[in-house]
C-alpha cells in the first residue's frame, strides 16, 4: 500500500540530547566523566508523527514556534535521522530552507550559481545549461560579477530561489523564506510554485502566514509540541488552528 505515498513518515520520533550544560570540549568532558556528572536530558522534538503524502499534494505545516515543524522538514530531507520510526521519500528533493545557505559571500553571483547548484547535487554541465534561465528569473543580469556580499538580502533570496526551483523536483520543501524580497518577487515565487504544483510536484510548506498556506496547499498538518494535533484538508485544519490561537 505504501507504494503510492511519495513521502511516508511512519511513527517518527526525533530525540535530542539536551545536555543541561553543553559540554563541547574534551577537558570538561573528562572532568564530568570522572565526577559522574555527565547527564543527558532527553528531549523529544517529535513524538510518533505520521504523515502520508501522495504525489502532487501540497501540505502546509503549521504550529507555533518550536513546535517541531522544521524538525519534521529536516527529517524529510534526510538531515536528521529518526530515533524511532521511519521516513521514506521517493524522487528528488529540493530544499528551500533558508535561501542561499550555500552561498559564499566572497564569490561573485556567477560563481555562486555553480557552487550552490552543485551543493544541491546538480552537475556542472547541468548548471551551465540552465545558467541563463536562472539569471533571467532572478533578474540579476547586471550584477553577474559582483561579489554576493554586496547584494541586498532580497537579491540573495532571488538568486537562491531561482537556483532551487530551476529543476522540477519531485518534492519541494519550503521553510518560510518568502518573507524577504519585494511584493512583486513574492508573487513571482508563488506563481512559480503554483506552476510546479500543477506540473505534479509535491510541496511541503512551512509558514506562519496562514493565508499563504491556504492559497498554496490543499492539506495541512498542525503540530503542537512535537505531537500532531490535527491533519487533513487545509480549510478544516487552519480554521481550527486560527480558532485555538484567538
Amino acid at each position, binding site marked *: 500500500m505504501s507504494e503510492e505515498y511519495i513521502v511516508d513518515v511512519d511513527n517518527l520520533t526525533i530525540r535530542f540530547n539536551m545536555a543541561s550544560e553543553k559540554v563541547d570540549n*574534551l*577537558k570538561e568532558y573528562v572532568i564530568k566523566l570522572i565526577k559522574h556528572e555527565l547527564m543527558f536530558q532527553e528531549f523529544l522534538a517529535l513524538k510518533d508523527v505520521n504523515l502520508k503524502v501522495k504525489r502532487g499534494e501540497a501540505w502546509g505545516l503549521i504550529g507555533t514556534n518550536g513546535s517541531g515543524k522544521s524538525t519534521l522538514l529536516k527529517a524529510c530531507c*534526510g*538531515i536528521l535521522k529518526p530515533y524511532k520510526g521511519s521516513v521514506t521519500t521517493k524522487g528528488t528533493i529540493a530544499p528551500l530552507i533558508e535561501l542561499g545557505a550555500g552561498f559564499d559571500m566572497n*564569490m561573485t553571483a556567477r560563481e555562486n550559481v555553480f*557552487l550552490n547548484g552543485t551543493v544541491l547535487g546538480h552537475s556542472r554541465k547541468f548548471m551551465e545549461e540552465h545558467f541563463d534561465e536562472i539569471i533571467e528569473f532572478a533578474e540579476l543580469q547586471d550584477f553577474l560579477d559582483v561579489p554576493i556580499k554586496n547584494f541586498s538580502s532580497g537579491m540573495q533570496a532571488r538568486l537562491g530561489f531561482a537556483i532551487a526551483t530551476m529543476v522540477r523536483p519531485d518534492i519541494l520543501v519550503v521553510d518560510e523564506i518568502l518573507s524577504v524580497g519585494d511584493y512583486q518577487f513574492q508573487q513571482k515565487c508563488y506563481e512559480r510554485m503554483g506552476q510546479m504544483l500543477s506540473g505534479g510536484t509535491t510541496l511541503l510548506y512551512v509558514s506562519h502566514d496562514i493565508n499563504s498556506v491556504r492559497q498554496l496547499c490543499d492539506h495541512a498538518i498542525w503540530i503542537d509540541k512535537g505531537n500532531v494535533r490535527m491533519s487533513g484538508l487545509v480549510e478544516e485544519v487552519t480554521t481550527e488552528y486560527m480558532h485555538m490561537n484567538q
Partner: protein
Amino acid sequence: MSVTRDRINTFFRYKDLLRELVVRDVKLKYRRSFLGYVWSILNPLLIMLVMTLVFSQMFQRGIENFPVYLLTGQALFDFMNNATHMSMYSVLDNGALIKKIYVPKYIFTLSKVTSSLIDLIFSMGALILVMLITRAPFSPYILLFPLVVIPLYIFVCGLGFFLSAANVFFRDIQYIYNAITVAWMYVTPMFYPIELLPDWLRKLVEYCNPMFYYIQFFRDLVLYRHFTTPRIFIGCWVMAFIMLSIGLGVFKKTQDNFILYI
C-alpha cells in the same frame, strides 16, 4: 553490495561540488594578493632561506645539499600540516549548510585536503628552482613523486576525517592538535639529519613517525636519485590505509550526530 553502489553513486553525484569547493579555495586564496601564485613559491623559498642560514652551519657534516634537503621535508610536512588544520574546521565551518541541506559531509573535508594538495604541487616550483640554483643533478626518479604524494594524500585524508569529526564534539581538539603538530615537527627530520637523534628515539621515529616514511621516500627520489627501500615503500601505504580506516571509521560512526552539536 547495493549500499556500496549507492555510496559510489552519491560520490559521483557530488564530484562537481568537490571541484567547485576546491576551485573556490584556490581562487579566494589568490584573488586579492598582488603576487598571486608567486606566493606559493616565494613563501617556502623565504622560509628555506632563513632556515638554511641558521641551520646549515650547525648540521654541515651530515647533509650534502642542505637547501634541497630542507625543502623536500618542509614541502611535505607543510602540506600535511595545512591540510589537517584546515580540514579540522571543514565540518564546523559548513555547519550552516549541513543543518539545512543534505550533502555528504566528507566532501568538505576532502575539498580542504585537495586544495592543500594543489598548493603542494605549486610549491614544487620552489623546489625545482632551488635545485637549479644549487646545481643539484636531476634524475628521472624525480618523475616518480606521485608514488609519494598519493599515499600521503590518503594518509592526510584519514587524519583530516578524524580531526574534523573530533572537532565537532570537542572544540579544544584544536589546541591539543596545535601542540601535537609542533612536537611532531621536531621529531621529523626536516632540518636535521636523523643520525643526530639518540638511538632509541631514532628507532621510534624511523618506525612510528608516518611523515618520516613519506619524506624519506621523497628525498630518495629527488636528492639521492634512487628508488627507496622496500620497507619505506610499503610503510607509506600501510600508514596511509591504517590512518584512512581510523579516520573513516570515526567519521562514519559519528556523522549522524554532527547536526546536534554544530
